[in-house]
């Protein structure tokens, strides 16, 4: 059944944070102010690579209205940060390695004074040669960014020697795929309010995907015990992976502590572009061979990722890309080698899809090319080579068994779009008509209706599809704990607390619906506590499509003890056996009477202490020794129809179908939103988004040149078909869908474009110039009489 509002019935709910967001009433953390608040700004390097000869701050300090000017000398603790590896300077010491590198920070009474003060800081640089090409950066003569060289990380996965096997292959496809630096483009740029506390600590009101990790990192930098740092981290105006790492928090916290006053920092869009993370650009070379019947025999993968100047999660992204470059197929023999390279380009890091987007664009491209070479239907070719449920994961690791691959494959096979492709349905014309309206001559229309292909012979339609197998959780070798807390508080509210964050994905709505459906609570009974390090248990990061799974698992663990405690307490108050009572909307109900025995408020009023249950758990992990290998996967297949205008080479997406097998749908609106939103991001990735850099500097500094899709680009229909079945005995429940929607559309568009325009796409975003034809008017049929 398609997932939409109508089919969702009562489960389609107004999200608790919805009214505040659509009315603008909700205050984001970057909207906060405090009396006496100072304004912070960060001085960043103008050079992609330079030696710092000196930093002089006297003039800036003496400017009236300036409260503090900080440099590397003012960091009491570790002058480094990084979730996985702390190698990024808070303030640079003797060298800057990219145009976002921080050298100093200022707090002043007004933003104008702060800006003037930045201009008064004198930094003497000696520009150094730059490494702006990851392949060149690997050469010995390249400028070296770090003492250990320019390699952040490499990953190898090899099951045998592919060389001799390729010689036996009947068909071999070798291709190089190039993917762009994509920007998260969250609406709310990085920022926050930083308030010094009386105990020498600091309260940090700044978005992040993992408040407790920020607290840990800030404790290192500030040399403070964690307990003296409070991190309030939700609500967040979008993140998509881009705010998991620290951004402005070190500067805000240091300035607040140095001045003793609250400090606000809020990046301009330009500063956000310059300093912030992007999706790793990758160059992926694949060589893949089959036998005469189309059985895959060998797969060689070489990935080069441009990770920018510092680590953040570059190594983990590379592991993920390597795993997903093998993906869902039974290859016979695999030889994958990947490398993540330091450059003086912008910072690359975590981004929805986490390296899978690049890898699967390449992998699915191979499948389409091979099928073409074999003269096979590309979807049948995939089926022949897809792994069965009993087979191990991409790295040969044990994985949770599901039919995910087969069911999403079948859903696309039977979809309207795929039938249109294979059966050559004539619907192409009607779509062409609809989309051609905008391009009609502005003078008079034709007197008689014409078929689109006659009126606009340059418009070409194509349909393509792609498979996605997407790992969730952090993977083997990385601690992945989680947990949650349920309490009946003194005011009668059922309080649920998780260390997760709400950045627009709908976590609050999903959690509320889970509580309503699992426990029978009414929305008014519930108070949700997230995003405050002083108030939440450790749930781990809101990342890696893990939050929904971990909430489901934690609530499963909490349900029985919490219900028992509440019912036992209610039984005592009511003087009836607990077994005759149940939890429900507004209070405790008699099972037989069908009447409410006691409100939660009344129950709470009779308790000496609140009832509190905590659960600790951990994301399921594979029994393997391969770091990063996943255990739980979600599966998707995407079919898409596009229209290519041969005059301009421009591609329009007309129609999308997404089949997603990720277990039960916890929140229909959230699930649909994730797939629609993710696919919009993939559409941008495929067709227009690229944070272009020239010699280590961004050529796209704002949304006037870095283009993301608008509603005009997203006009076609998007159908989402969730497949909720899990094998009997599966104990893992819902798999997260936060990322999977962002992966498959780009390779599907590439294939659809190939069908439409006959051009194979090996580089994103698709360059319209490659699809353009000179005078693309087929069979010109207007002749004058004398011819």
């Amino acid at each position, binding site marked *: 059944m398609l997932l939409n509002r109508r089919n969702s019935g009562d489960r389609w709910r107004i999200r608790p944070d919805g009214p505040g967001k659509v009315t603008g009433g909700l205050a984001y953390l970057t909207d906060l102010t405090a009396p006496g608040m100072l304004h912070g700004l960060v001085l960043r390097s103008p050079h992609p690579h330079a030696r710092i000869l000196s930093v002089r701050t006297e003039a800036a300090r003496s400017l009236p209205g300036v409260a503090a000017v900080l440099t590397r000398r003012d960091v009491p603790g570790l002058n480094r940060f990084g979730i996985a590896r702390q190698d990024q300077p808070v303030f640079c010491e003797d060298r800057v390695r990219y145009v976002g590198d921080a050298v100093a920070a200022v707090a002043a009474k007004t*933003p104008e004074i702060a800006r003037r003060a930045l201009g008064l800081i004198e930094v003497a640089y000696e520009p150094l040669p730059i490494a702006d090409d990851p392949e060149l950066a690997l050469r010995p003569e390249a400028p070296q960014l770090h003492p250990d060289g320019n390699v952040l990380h490499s990953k190898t996965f090899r099951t045998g020697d592919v060389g001799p096997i390729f010689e036996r292959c009947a068909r071999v496809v070798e291709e190089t795929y190039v993917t762009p630096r994509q920007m998260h483009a969250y609406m709310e740029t990085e920022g926050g309010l930083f308030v010094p506390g009386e105990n020498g600590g600091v309260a940090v009101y700044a978005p992040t995907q993992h408040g407790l990790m920020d607290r840990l990192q800030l404790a290192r930098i500030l040399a403070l015990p964690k307990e003296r740092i409070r991190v309030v981290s939700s609500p967040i105006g979008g993140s998509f992976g881009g705010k998991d790492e620290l951004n402005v928090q070190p500067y805000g916290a240091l300035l607040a502590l140095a001045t003793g006053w609250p400090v606000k920092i809020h990046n*301009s869009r330009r500063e956000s572009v310059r300093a912030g993370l992007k999706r790793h650009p990758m160059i992926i070379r694949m060589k893949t061979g089959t036998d005469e019947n189309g059985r895959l025999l060998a797969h060689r993968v070489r990935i080069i990722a441009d990770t920018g100047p510092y680590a953040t999660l570059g190594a983990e992204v590379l592991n993920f890309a390597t795993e997903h470059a093998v993906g869902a197929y039974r290859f016979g023999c695999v030889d994958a080698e990947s490398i993540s390279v330091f450059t003086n380009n912008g910072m690359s890091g975590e981004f929805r899809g986490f390296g899978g987007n690049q890898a699967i664009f390449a992998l699915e491209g191979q499948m389409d090319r091979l099928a073409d070479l074999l003269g096979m239907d590309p979807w049948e070719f995939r089926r022949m080579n897809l792994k069965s449920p009993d087979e191990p994961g991409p790295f040969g690791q044990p994985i949770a068994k599901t039919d995910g691959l087969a069911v999403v494959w079948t859903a696309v096979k039977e979809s309207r779009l795929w039938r249109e492709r294979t059966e050559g349905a004539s619907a192409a014309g009607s779509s062409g008509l609809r989309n051609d309206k905008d391009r009609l001559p502005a003078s008079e229309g034709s007197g008689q209706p014409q078929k689109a292909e006659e009126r606009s012979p340059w418009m070409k339609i194509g349909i393509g599809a792609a498979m996605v197998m997407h790992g969730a959780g952090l993977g083997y070798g990385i601690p992945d704990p989680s947990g949650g807390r349920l309490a009946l508080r003194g005011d009668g509210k059922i309080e649920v607390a998780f260390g997760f964050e709400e950045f627009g994905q709908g976590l609050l709505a999903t959690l509320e619906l889970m509580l309503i459906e699992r426990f029978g609570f009414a929305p008014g009974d519930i108070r949700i506590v997230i995003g405050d390090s002083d108030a939440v248990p450790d749930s781990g990061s809101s990342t890696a499509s893990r939050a929904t799974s971990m909430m489901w698992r934690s609530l499963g663990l909490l349900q029985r003890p919490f219900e028992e405690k509440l019912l036992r307490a209610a039984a005592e108050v009511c003087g009836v056996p607990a077994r005759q009572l149940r939890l429900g909307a507004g209070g405790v109900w008699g099972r037989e009477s069908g009447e409410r025995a006691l409100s939660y408020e009344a129950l709470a009023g009779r308790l000496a202490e609140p009832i509190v249950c905590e659960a600790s758990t951990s994301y399921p992990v594979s029994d393997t020794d391969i770091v990063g290998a996943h255990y739980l996967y979600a599966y998707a297949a995407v079919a898409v129809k596009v229209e290519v205008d041969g005059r301009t080479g421009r591609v329009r997406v007309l129609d999308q179908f997404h089949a997603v097998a990720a277990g039960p749908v916890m929140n229909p609106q959230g699930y649909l939103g994730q797939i629609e939103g993710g696919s919009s991001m993939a559409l941008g990735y495929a067709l227009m988004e690229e944070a*272009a850099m020239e010699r280590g500097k961004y050529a796209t500094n704002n949304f006037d040149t870095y283009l993301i899709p608008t509603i005009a680009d997203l006009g076609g229909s998007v159908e989402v078909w969730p497949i909720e079945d899990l094998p009997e005995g599966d104990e893992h429940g819902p798999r997260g869908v936060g990322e999977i929607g962002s992966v498959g559309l780009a390779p599907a568009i590439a294939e659809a474009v190939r069908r439409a325009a006959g051009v194979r796409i090996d580089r994103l975003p698709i360059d319209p110039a490659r699809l353009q034809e*000179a005078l693309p008017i087929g069979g010109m049929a207007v002749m004058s009489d004398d*011819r």
Partner: protein
Amino acid sequence: MSGTVGMPASTSTVWHPRDASEACRLKKRFGSGAVYTAGGTLLRTQWEAGQRPEPAHLIDLSGIPEMRGIRTEGGELAIGALTTLAVCRRDPYLQARFPLLAEAARAIAAPSIRNLATIGGNILSAVGDSLPVFLVYKARLIWREGEAERAEDAEDWLERGGEETEASVRLLLQIRLPLDDSPEKAGRTFGFYGKIGRREAFVPSLVTTALTGRIAPDGQLRGVRLAAGDGKTVPRRFPLTESRLEGAAADDGAVRLLHRLLLEQYKPAPDPFATAEYRKLTAANLAASHLWQAIRENAGRGEG
């Protein structure tokens, strides 16, 4: 603005003249330290991008009555320079008589910006997406300098680069478009406007073209006018192409000719997002495809 770090608070003095003469006097007084402003949408992006500083004096034109309104005057349609793009898009008379202008207005920026941005401002940017339309519609620009009014063909103005100097005092009051109602022009008229960017809407132009003309009853092309430009290239007409098409048979040969000549004559500049070749070919393809459509529809009508 309050509280937004990274954007300077405005330090300009804002003046509100009540007529064009007063506006010109203010501009004369402050010289290049003053900037005329109407919708202010382009200025704001230029300030924000550091392309020009915020001036000491802003002269707000929004209170000047003679720069407002759309009316017919002596065989011409006079469009006040302060007319917003939103009005250009919606005005029924404009839509009926000058549909390409309504089309162009639809293709510029986004709704919220079109509510503020004026047609005069789009013209004075010299690379506005409405300009190709004014070129094919033979627009005249009506300027006011002090008490003197002067008319100038939009084409002449653009040929000189279209840029007003920082100190230039003159004000664009109106744009006038000829209302050509002569009955002897039989046959079928056609017109086309196209803007191509890197996405479907709210995007700088890579190619903007406008084409008008007529297929006479004898099957010959008459009065073809063609213009092209983009967000960085000042638009121009293509007189050689137009004259070669004058009297040519409305058939595939004319389409090929238009395509070939435009490829030869259009000289756009590249940027990091599109090559000159792409822009050229796109302009030629768009113009040719629409001439082809016009010819084809005309042929279909003749047979029917």
